[in-house]
């Protein structure tokens, strides 16, 4: 039966045609464009039928936030304004999402940390907000350069967390991300992360969908919970706050709701697999040496694999696209033949290696590193050197910067 309420095929006020997202992302013609990552975020938003974008400046996402301001001036975004701080921005995002809007925001590093209290609140309230995280250093002394430590803090918020490698991932995943987030059996916020500068400020070729096609608008009636507006059950947060009742029922309610949020993360698995074509991507996974990585570390791994090939060393690759939901089954399968699993990371603690160790049997196969942090670049040569050392081969000492 035809859906008489469908807006597919009709036009918005900018003359863009609301298009079935699957059709738009998979079958519409693509135009190669040479853009920075920030420009690509803008182009994705142009097509996202976004109701509200709230901005606050912090490098390296400021450019993207300002460019979306231009989109608003052109009439492509419902509403756009600047908050007083990241904490305010994320709270305002919640307000807009409670009100039934499709919401978008961008942040980075210390901004992510400052706003942290809001993220479990978003997922607890089941708000499908999309937040771009352009990772940068978070510790003192100050750094504006790429460092992925902040992702570790997002992993247990109940948000979906994806890690983009390139601006192309960004373009596609911003649009597809809303489709996963807004599913009634998911309805959770998405933290779409990338390594700042390496993606945001790098000019690269990105294939864009037609600018006259856009996503169908968000339908707030697909929310699995009634709007939690402080009065309505199931969570009358103001009138009957659990926190005021230290009894078993209040604990049980809270506990079951936490379980439900994480069950929703699990339920997002099937949608994520469908939309971004699997939680991981593999190349030559039957090789004895395997690089397992996410974000820019994947790119550096690809270059290292080329260098190793020149020396006759075969090395495979596992690109982790989604961190939440976590691709445990996929990683176990992809690494089952590997003797050495190398996990290069742009952070000091090696959180990804820890996750992988907790996932696979014989975790002593995992080599945590090489690590760079605080804004350092990871030349492919240091991955090569780490691998050759593991294989007991001689390596040249690397004459790098400062030598």
């Amino acid at each position, binding site marked *: 039966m035809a859906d008489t309420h469908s807006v597919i095929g009709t036009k918005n006020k900018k003359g863009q045609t609301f298009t079935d997202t699957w059709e738009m992302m998979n079958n519409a013609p693509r135009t190669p464009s040479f853009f920075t990552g920030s420009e690509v975020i803008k182009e994705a938003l142009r097509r996202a039928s976004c109701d509200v974008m709230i901005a606050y400046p912090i490098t390296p996402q400021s450019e993207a936030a300002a460019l979306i301001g231009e989109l608003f001036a052109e009439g492509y975004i419902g509403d756009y304004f600047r908050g007083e701080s990241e904490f305010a921005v994320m709270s305002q995002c919640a307000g807009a999402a409670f009100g039934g809007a499709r919401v978008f925001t961008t942040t980075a590093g210390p901004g992510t940390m400052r706003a942290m209290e809001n993220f479990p609140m978003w997922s607890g309230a089941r708000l499908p907000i999309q937040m771009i995280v352009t990772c940068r250093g978070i510790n003192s002394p100050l750094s504006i350069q790429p460092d992925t430590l902040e992702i570790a803090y997002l992993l247990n918020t109940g948000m979906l967390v994806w890690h983009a490698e390139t601006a192309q991932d960004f373009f596609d995943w911003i649009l597809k991300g809303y489709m996963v987030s807004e599913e009634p059996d998911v309805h959770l916020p998405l933290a779409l992360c990338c390594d700042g500068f390496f993606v945001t400020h790098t000019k690269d070729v990105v294939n864009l969908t037609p600018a006259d096609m856009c996503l169908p608008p968000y339908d707030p009636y697909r929310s699995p919970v009634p709007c939690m507006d402080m009065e309505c059950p199931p969570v009358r947060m103001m009138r009957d706050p659990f926190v005021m009742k230290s009894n078993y029922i209040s604990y049980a309610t809270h506990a079951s709701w936490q379980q439900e949020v994480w069950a929703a993360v699990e339920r997002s698995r099937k949608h994520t697999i469908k939309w971004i074509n699997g939680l991981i991507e593999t190349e030559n996974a039957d090789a004895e040496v395997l690089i397992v990585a996410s974000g820019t570390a994947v*790119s550096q791994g690809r270059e290292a694999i080329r260098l190793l090939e020149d020396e006759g060393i075969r090395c495979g690759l596992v690109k982790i696209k989604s961190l939440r939901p976590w691709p445990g089954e996929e990683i176990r399968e992809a690494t089952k033949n590997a003797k050495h699993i190398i996990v290069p990371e742009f952070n000091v603690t090696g959180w990804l290696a820890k996750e992988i160790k907790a996932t696979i049997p014989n975790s002593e196969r995992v080599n945590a590193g090489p690590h760079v942090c605080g804004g350092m670049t*990871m030349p*492919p040569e240091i991955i090569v050197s780490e691998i050759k050392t593991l294989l007991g081969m001689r390596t040249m000492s690397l*004459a*790098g910067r*400062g030598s």
Partner: protein
Amino acid sequence: MIKKRLNVRMSGLGGQGAVTAAHVLAMAANRDGKFSISNPFFGAEKRMAPAESYCRIGIERIYDRGELVFPDVIQVFHPQVITMGKSYTMPFYSGVKEGGLVIINSDQPLLSEEDVQRLKDLNVALFYIAGTELAIEVAGTELSTNMSMLGSVAGITKCVSMESLDLALQERFGKKFVASGGTASLDEAIKKKFAKKEMLLAKNLATVKAAYDIASAWAEKNQYELRVGNPAMAA
């Protein structure tokens, strides 16, 4: 020497347009049908502070991101990069690959004998160009120094064509402004700006061309070759 990948590191000072130069070079390479990416690296965004940008050009897809630790070409946009150590590394040429190229914007030699010897040991060619003077002479402004630097790297390595550089410059600076308000006064203002823009484009292009010719002649005279291409096919 013909290489699958040409890695260019541009060391300049904030405000000199090193970031723009890398973007334009990458855009031009992309137009020529090569693979290319560019990205900047800087700290606090302020004038005269060290700023670096990188352009990678190759014959296969490029994944490598971030600082260029091992460049083939190093371009020094300002003497202070060397004389005052306004560089991300000391010395500014650390990491340069054997057979590489150093291009310095200066009207006089700046390197110590020791530095010259170290570059010689690595078989690295050294080319000085008075890029700022050239920019003032041709474009009438030192703001076009980055154009001299673009012309010199293109002239020696032929990594991009002049036609593509022209088109990339147009794309970067000649973008038509889309007036959303559409008021008559706004349109007037844009027209005035556009006339100026065309002049700016022409003068910048002339600066690129002048530097290209000087650098090209230098490479020919010194029989220096560093190209992007397929080494297997060339051999």
